[in-house]
């Protein structure tokens, strides 16, 4: 596929992430930190996010198997999870985190479990989308990924 076409397509895909609510303004903040000296910054941060949060997910899954649930512990895990998700602009994941914490405060086990399943879904969907996006970005060649130019 011709480069310009790839880049146009990439820009459309990127815009859809915002339009469909997968990502928010924070992602743009990360893009603005990317430059010639740090050309893969966004991908590096996202990769780190998925690496670190996979451990958290495991911990939460295990904690959800306990009976009764330790809502305090769960809330602590989710506080961390929400923090990192916010930092990369993962809007839908962040919303599920908030919901989960509401259920923890209310001591609602079923709510927690249901929300966590939803959270994992959103988390996986975003991961697939971003992986595909970064791969396509690499194929399209060095590119100003943010719509706004820095200079």
């Amino acid at each position, binding site marked *: 596929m011709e480069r310009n076409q790839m880049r146009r397509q990439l820009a459309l895909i990127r815009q859809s992430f915002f339009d469909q609510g997968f990502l928010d303004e*924070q992602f743009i903040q990360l893009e603005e930190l990317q430059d010639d000296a740090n050309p893969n910054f966004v991908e590096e941060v996202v990769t*780190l996010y998925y690496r670190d949060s996979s451990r958290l997910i495991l911990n939460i899954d295990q904690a959800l198997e306990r009976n009764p649930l330790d809502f305090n512990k769960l809330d602590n895990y989710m506080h961390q999870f929400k*923090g*990192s998700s*916010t930092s990369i602009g993962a809007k839908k994941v962040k919303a599920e985190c908030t919901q989960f914490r509401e259920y923890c405060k209310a001591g609602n086990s079923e709510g927690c479990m249901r929300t966590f399943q939803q959270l994992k879904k959103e988390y996986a969907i975003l991961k697939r989308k971003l992986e595909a996006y970064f791969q396509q970005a690499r194929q399209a060649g060095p590119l100003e990924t943010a719509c706004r130019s820095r200079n």
Partner: protein
Amino acid sequence: MLKSQTGMEDGFLSSVGAEDSKMLEPPTKITALVVDDDTINQMIHHRLLDNLGIRNQVVRNGKEAIDVHCSGKNFDLILMDMEMPVMNGIEATRKLRAMGIQSMIAGVSTNTRERENFMEAGLDDYQEKPLTTSKLVSILHKVHKDG
């Protein structure tokens, strides 16, 4: 007290929307310490500071922040997370102030409930996470106004 020596940095600073840029020292002379247990925030805050030409170091919790000062290092700006293992931001801020550290300490957190306690521990500023370039610039303005 810190004034710009040349007009060089004005262009840079106005590009990040800084007003009153003549009052600021060339960015490369400011040093900062990032205190945060979250690896993603460490990476982002480190890069945000780098991007503004601010040399910085990253530590993982309040105790490491104390240790680095005990080793003789000093920083113009400390970005202090609140919730951290081993020693949290409130305790670390108190200890640093008790040690006589007068650096600008900006609390960076998501925990609005503890904000007052955090401020009382000795913060000069408080910003909600996640940090952005513009939040950082507003912190830096405070560094020079109080200087």
